[in-house]
């Protein structure tokens, strides 16, 4: 996936001279996850450059650059390291278009590696999507596969709205041969990754792989599972997801972030409003625990896994499985 993201940045830089890539360690080092590897060498240090270590400064200057016609793609090194930039993101990046009655557009992409599963120490594994999705004016997307990482990042850079681009760290090194293309579902769309008839599993980012594994394992239990990769967390693709849940009548939402007040609550609420009369069972959530992200040797207890997802499916009031 890191390679797909790198290719997306390289192609965007080559296609549009307004595109800039900057952040801490993105130039000579190529980023701590090597997502920007080789870009400074290829495009020069006026297009791809290192900044001082200051997240608010990175986002705040990106806003000014976008006001002056450039298209900045900036990197926050880790999810929790983005918090110093929160004011710039919520008060300005999200709102300038609105405050100026549409006169100022901010086509800024903020890349945030998010989530755990890599044995990282504290402040390196947060899932901060709910903070961003709760902010009107921001688009929030998260790719779940390498091919989609390329497509979504190209779409995010081309989008006239600011985009928080959440990269699932644990999928950086996933090796799947994929054709990198800009043809595919739009930036607002969810994707059905696996068709099924009995239950809809909904995941995004780092949980897409887990959900697909769970769907495969569920086959042995006799369940035919449909898997939806949300891709776009904000806006939410009501049409695709509701249609799936109406077909299957059952749904489980899976994310790594804590449950209380989490993103899954929004998904469940929307589906309940839209699909209530089609539901065979309450919609369940399989999520991280309501704790700060745990230390690496205990993170397996926090993260949703295949067993937990299968347990949730089993609780969906199946008459023939009791």
């Amino acid at each position, binding site marked *: 996936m890191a390679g797909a993201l790198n290719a997306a940045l390289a192609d965007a830089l080559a296609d549009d001279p307004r595109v800039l890539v900057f952040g801490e360690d993105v130039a000579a080092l190529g980023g701590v996850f090597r997502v920007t590897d080789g870009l400074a060498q290829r495009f020069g240090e006026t297009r791809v450059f290192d900044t001082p270590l200051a997240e608010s400064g990175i986002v*705040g*200057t990106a806003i*000014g*650059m976008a006001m*002056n016609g450039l298209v900045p793609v900036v990197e926050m090194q880790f999810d929790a390291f983005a918090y110093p930039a929160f*004011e710039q993101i919520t008060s300005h990046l999200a709102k300038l278009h609105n405050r*100026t*009655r549409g006169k100022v557009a901010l086509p800024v992409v903020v890349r945030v590696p998010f989530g755990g599963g890599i044995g990282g120490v504290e402040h390196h594994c947060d899932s901060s999507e709910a903070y961003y999705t709760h902010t009107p004016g921001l688009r929030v997307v998260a790719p779940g596969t390498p091919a989609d990482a390329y497509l979504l990042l190209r779409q995010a850079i081309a989008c006239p709205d600011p985009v928080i681009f959440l990269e699932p760290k644990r999928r950086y090194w996933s090796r799947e041969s994929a054709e990198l293309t800009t043809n595919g579902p739009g930036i607002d769309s969810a994707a059905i990754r696996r068709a099924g008839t009995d239950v809809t599993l909904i995941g995004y980012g780092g949980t897409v792989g887990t959900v697909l594994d769970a769907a495969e394992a569920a086959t042995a239990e006799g369940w035919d599972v449909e898997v939806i990769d949300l891709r776009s967390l904000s806006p939410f693709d009501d049409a695709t997801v509701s249609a799936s849940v109406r077909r299957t009548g059952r749904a489980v939402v899976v994310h790594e972030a804590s449950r209380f007040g989490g993103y899954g609550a929004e998904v469940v609420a929307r589906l309940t409003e839209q699909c209530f009369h089609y539901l065979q069972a309450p919609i369940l959530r399989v999520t991280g625990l309501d704790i700060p992200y745990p230390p690496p040797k205990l993170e397996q207890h926090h993260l949703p896994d295949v067993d937990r997802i299968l347990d949730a499916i089993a609780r969906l009031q199946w008459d023939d499985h009791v």
Partner: protein
Amino acid sequence: MNGRRSDETVEQVRPGTAHRERDAAVTTAATDAARIEGLLPSQTPLQLIDPQGRPTAGHGALPPPEALRRLYRDMVVGRRFDTQATALTKQGRLAVYPSSRGQEACEVGAALAMREQDWLFPTYRDSVAIVSRSVDPIEVLCLLRGEWHCGYDPYEHRVAPQCTPLATNTLHAVGLAHAARLKGEDTIAVVLLGDGASSEGDTHEALNFAGVWNAPVVFLVQNNGYAISVPLAKQTAAPSLAYKGIGYGVRSVLIDGNDPAVVYASVREAVEGAAAGGGPTLIEAITYRMEAHTNADDASRYRADAEVQRWLARDPLTRLETYLREHDLLDDERAAAVQAEAEEFAASVRERMNQDDELDPAELFEHVYARPTAQLVAQRQELLAELGNQEDA
């Protein structure tokens, strides 16, 4: 003025130049000392016209007479605008108004020292600067009137939206100015901030970015003594706010913010220096807010009347008027004409503010995203249906 690094004013403007320059500088103590000297502000605020309206010796050349007369005109109009806006709060026409009475030298001095192609990044207190930048006063008051957040097109006069969160605009200014250099544009940014904003993290990140990038930005700190009620002594332990530039390699200047001539000359020098590749400047202008923080504030709870009286004697308008009259640049006739112009300006503001424009609730949904989302399209229909039902009832 106090010594721009003359040998560096036409240095190469690529990013990274300042950094290499600094690497080289640390190798020789002599270069270091010269560099530090070039960054240091003066011990006392620079002045070109003293509070009695007399030119001061040894601080540099006064701006040309035409510039001084324009300063006078815009300051008189600006003060009248400020008084009018304050009156409009009492009539309920404005939700709130943060007066800048007493700070006209900074407001107008900064606006007039800029070139047409430069960008101004104001705060909520800088309405007079924006008016001086030729933005329609009704559009300037749109935010405070409660009709929309920013009433003007930022690109039309190159004025960013008035910024309410403190110091966040400093970073926008650095970004815009740096982008201008990357694009090869002859554009610089002037960002306005106050003494309170100098304590915010973003000011420090902005000064640091501007220093490292050698960005063409002028930071004008209007030090009016109070951040709402908190006095400068509780804001900083620094000898002066101008010292905050030094740690970031940003040349720093300390001036008398009630002297319109020195504000104009200092900002103009910093603008021209930045445009020539000389990098950022931090200017601390010592001034005073004669009114309360806003019409909702009670300034008598935190400052003594005697202090306000002392500052009234330093009124920037009186100072410039005295100078102009004593140098035959202003007579009664001309002063009366300017006053009449200000009255006309205020009357027009009053009249236009008395009109209630019809607001379109559907507009609430139009500018959230450049590409509307399905959710907002649906909410728009819900609200319009709700309003339609109310009308039917």
